[in-house]
Structures are given as C-alpha cells and as structure tokens.
C-alpha cells in the first residue's frame, strides 16, 4: 500500500511540475510582455527599465529557475496591471466561482445518478429511452448555447430571472443550471451503464436466485459495486469545480475565476494567468489523487496492479 501511495504521489508531483513548465514556456515564449503592456510607442530605455524591473532581461533558464523558486516559496508574482500580488487577485475570486459550481455539482449528483440508476433498473422501458435521449442531449448542447437559451426564455421573454451579474441568490440560478446540464447527462449515462454492468454480474444473479428480495439485492450488492466507477467521474467533476465555469461566467458576467482568466489572458497578465493555471492544475491533481486512493480503497483488486 505504501508503494502504491508513494508512486501515486510522485506522479502527482511530476504532473504539477509539468504544468508549471508548460505555463512558463507558453507564457514567456509567446511574446514580449513589455511591448504588450507598454504599447508600441514607448522609448527603448523605458522598455529596458521595465524588463529589468520584472526580471525579463535575464536568460530564459534563469527566469525559469527563479520562477520555480518563487512558486515553491509561495510567491506567485505581482499582477502586471495593478501591482497587487497575483495570488490575492485569484483567491478573492474563488468564492464567487464556488457559489456557482458547488450548487451545480449538487444538481449533477442529485439528478444525474438517480436518473441513471432508475433507467438501468427499468432497462429498455420508455422512461429508460427518455433518460438516455435527454442525457445525450444534455452533453451535446454546448454550455454557451444552453446559457443563452435560458437567458432568452427566463430573462428576456418571461423576465423572471436576472440575465447576468452577481447579487441575490436568483442571480446564481441560471448559471448554476447551465453548468450542471452537461454533467447531469454524463453522470446519468455513466451511472446507467455502470449499473447495467453490475446487474449482469453472476453475484447479482446468485443473490436474487437465493431468494434475496430484489430491493435488497440492489441496495446491498448492486449499488455499492456500481459506485466504484461512478467515483471516478465524480472525482473529475470535483476537480473541475474551479475550472468548469469559464464559459458560463463569461455569459453571465459572473466575477469568478473564469472571467479573471479570460480578462488576464487578453491583457497578457502573465503572473495572474500562471497563478490560475497552477491553481486549476493543483485542484485537479489533488482530486485525481484522492480518487485514485479512494478507488484503491473501494476496490482492493486495483492495488495489485502497477501504478498506471
């Protein structure tokens, strides 16, 4: 078990390092931030001073090392726009994003999993087909279309809900629903197929052949076993709590991480973009790690396999 955990931890660290390198390479190699920020008509000495100030005059590998060093000491740099620490800018946006993504996650879990399990238990019924169709529809509608259609109906036509911005709880309803639709579809389909697979297993047939009541078979044997694969998907959804709202925040002018990312990207604010990339990757890696460990705990067979 120790071997499994330590290998998994090592992989997580390597991944974080890879993301850090990616962020550095893409952001530093793509253009000169000095020219972008200062504009084209600035005298050379001002540009030089700016570069010196931000350490952009050093060789690239030196910039890379000091970048890594700074991150490991918790320094994510200053936003080039208003000189405040990037990490502060990012952190103050997190609550807003979570206000959307957590209710959305609850919606996904609360609707997707029961719908999928219900469909699996009533396989090939009209309701099952309906669930499958809606599920496919759910994740084939792009979130920006879904969001705009909801705005068109509930804000523009009916006028019952605000079309954007943050404020009352009503403001969060449309964006949260928009975020959740795709996930509900994915979870419903996934739980359905996981459940169908489990129901076909010999131990289920054995249990029901022994005369165990079907209800108890489902509760005692089918659900716990179907839960194992579902955990993976849910883990991925937890991992994207921070990153999953970029498009929707843009549609609804919601001041969360996603909006900050889009704005910083268009302003070429290196420090902030780096910080967001690392934050997203860290959350993802940690939740994947937790899922893997949880998985090993739920399904002891997996521990015996090599770690990939």
């Amino acid at each position, binding site marked *: 078990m120790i071997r499994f955990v330590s290998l998994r931890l090592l*992989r997580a660290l390597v991944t974080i390092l890879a993301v850090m390198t990616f*962020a550095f390479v893409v952001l530093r190699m793509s253009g000169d931030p000095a020219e972008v920020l200062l504009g084209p008509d600035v005298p050379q000495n001002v540009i030089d001073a700016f570069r010196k100030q931000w350490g952009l005059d050093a060789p690239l590998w030196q910039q890379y090392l000091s970048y890594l060093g700074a991150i490991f000491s918790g320094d994510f740099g200053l936003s080039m726009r208003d000189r405040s620490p990037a990490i502060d800018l990012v952190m103050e946006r997190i609550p807003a994003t979570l206000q959307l993504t957590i209710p959305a996650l609850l919606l996904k879990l609360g609707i997707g999993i029961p719908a999928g399990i219900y469909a699996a238990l009533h396989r090939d019924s009209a309701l099952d087909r309906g669930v499958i169709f809606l599920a496919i529809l759910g994740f084939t509608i792009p979130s*920006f279309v879904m969001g*705009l259609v909801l705005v068109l109906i509930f804000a*523009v036509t009916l006028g019952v809900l605000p079309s954007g911005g943050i404020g009352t709880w009503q403001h969060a309803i449309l964006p949260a629903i928009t975020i959740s639709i795709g996930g509900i579809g994915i979870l419903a389909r996934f739980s359905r197929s996981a459940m169908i697979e489990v129901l076909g297993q010999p131990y289920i047939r054995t249990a029901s052949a022994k005369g165990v009541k079907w209800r108890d078979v489902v509760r005692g044997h089918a659900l716990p076993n179907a839960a194992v694969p579902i955990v993976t998907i849910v883990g991925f959804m937890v991992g994207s709590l921070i*990153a*999953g709202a970029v498009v929707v925040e843009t549609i609804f002018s919601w001041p969360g991480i996603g909006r900050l*990312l889009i704005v910083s990207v*268009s302003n*070429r604010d290196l420090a902030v973009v780096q910080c967001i990339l690392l934050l997203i990757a860290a959350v993802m890696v940690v939740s994947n790690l937790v899922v893997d460990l949880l998985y090993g705990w739920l399904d002891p067979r997996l521990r015996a396999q090599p770690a990939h």
Partner: protein
Amino acid sequence: MTFANPSETPTRRRGVLRAATSVPPAVGFGMLWLALMVLCALFANWVRPYDITQMDLSARLSPPGTPGHWLGTDELGRDVLSRLIQSVRVSLVIAFGATIISAVFGTTLGFLAAQFRGVVEHFVVMLADFQAALPFLIMSLAVLAFFGSSMWLLVCLMGFYGWERYARIARGLAISAGAQGYAAAVVQLGATPRRVYLHHILPNVASTLIVSMTLTFPEIILMESGLSFLGLGVQPPETSLGNMVGFGREYLTTAPWIMLGPAVVIMLTTLSISLVGDWLRDKLDPTIR
C-alpha cells in the same frame, strides 16, 4: 490513466447483420442530418446564396423569412444562411482534421508504449496525467491567447484533444496481441515491428479506433465552438458555428435568429454524431464506453 485490455468480441458478425436490418428512427435521423452537413461542407461554395462578407446595409437585421434572406440577416446585413453554410464547413473541417491528428498521435503513442514499454510508457502516462490535470479548454485558452489564433494552430491544438483515449486502446490491444497472440506469432515469423503494427495490429484495432473517433469528434466540435465563442478560436472575417453564436449574442434580444441558427446546427450535429456513434458502438464494439 488506467490502461484496460478490451476483450475480444465474438458477437461481431452477428452484430453487423443485425445492424443492417434495423436502424432506430433517431439514428436514421442522425445519419440523414450528418449526410446533409457533409454535403453542406463539401459544396459550401456552390450552395450558399451570398458571399459571407457581402453586406446589405439596407437590409440589416432582417428577420427569418425575408425573401432573399430565408434565415434573416445580421447586424451588417450579411446573409445568415450563407454564413451558416460556411460555418458548417469551417467547423467540420477543423473537427475532422483534429480528430484525425488526435487518432494518429494517440495510436502512435499507444503502439510505441506497447512496443518499448519502460521509459516510453512512463512518458506517455506522464503526458496523459498532464492532460488530465489541465482542462483542455483552459490549456487551449492559454496557448491561443498568447500565440494568437490561426486556423493551423487551432487544428493542431484541437488535435491534442482526446489522444489518450486512442493511446489507451491501442496500447492495450497491442499488448494483448503481442503477449501470446497473433502479433507474437508474426514476430516469430521474422516480421519487422513496422510490418507487425501496420499489417496486423492496426487493421485489427481499426474498428475500435474508428468507433472512438465518434466520441472525440463531437467533443472537438464543442471545444472549437466554445473557444470561438470566447473569441479565441476562428477569427473574423472567417466564420464558424461558435463564432457566429458569440457575435450573435449581443443581439440576443433584438435579433435572436443570428445565434439560434448556428446553435441549433451545433446541437443537431453533435447529437447526431453521438446517436450514430452510440449505436455503432453497441453494434460493433461493446467493449468501450
């Protein structure tokens, strides 16, 4: 990333027979729609009534049903139908190109991992870990924003989407073929690795790979239209489905038809591919989800 070894599918032939005789109506609709879209994309230049940049300032924001502009016009008086047809072409070309790149890239990596194991395998797993850590949209956002968007970059970038699925399948099937099976036998006959992979393993995994392409294809369409919607994908004056929705968004209240047309097309297309793909998967290869 977990590499599973899909098992053999003994019922394949029966599946094909049954498939030919009964096509559910939804799948039939999907096939028709996809055929229409492909025709649209192939013959866009002949089909569309106007040039996509041709403005008719006297007929700005005409609603659908206006004679000469059956789907209406946008804020500059450009014909929505013409732009829609061109958008279908652009979006399909990007998604198709990217799907091919992704399949080739992923399959190659999977085969390399199966052939060399060890370090190569660790490297592929690391790449997959990296991809799992950074949501694709976010990664693309960073790359496109800082390198600027061009058609080529967009296709190549999208081509990195979903490769790990092919890699996993290709590696798993290659290893199971190599351990005891026909691939080991062919190696024993003196065949070069190139012959083993191209003549034997690739044809044997092709149907599984093609079915996984039907999973990747709609996802790439969604990804590209999402990026274009955010203004980082296809750039004006060229147009794509996402980009039309993005610009049409500002006229949501006054001229919703500008965005509804492309929105419906995106939905129907991804839905059709998913329906057809699901059906194909059930019939041909039930081992992958």
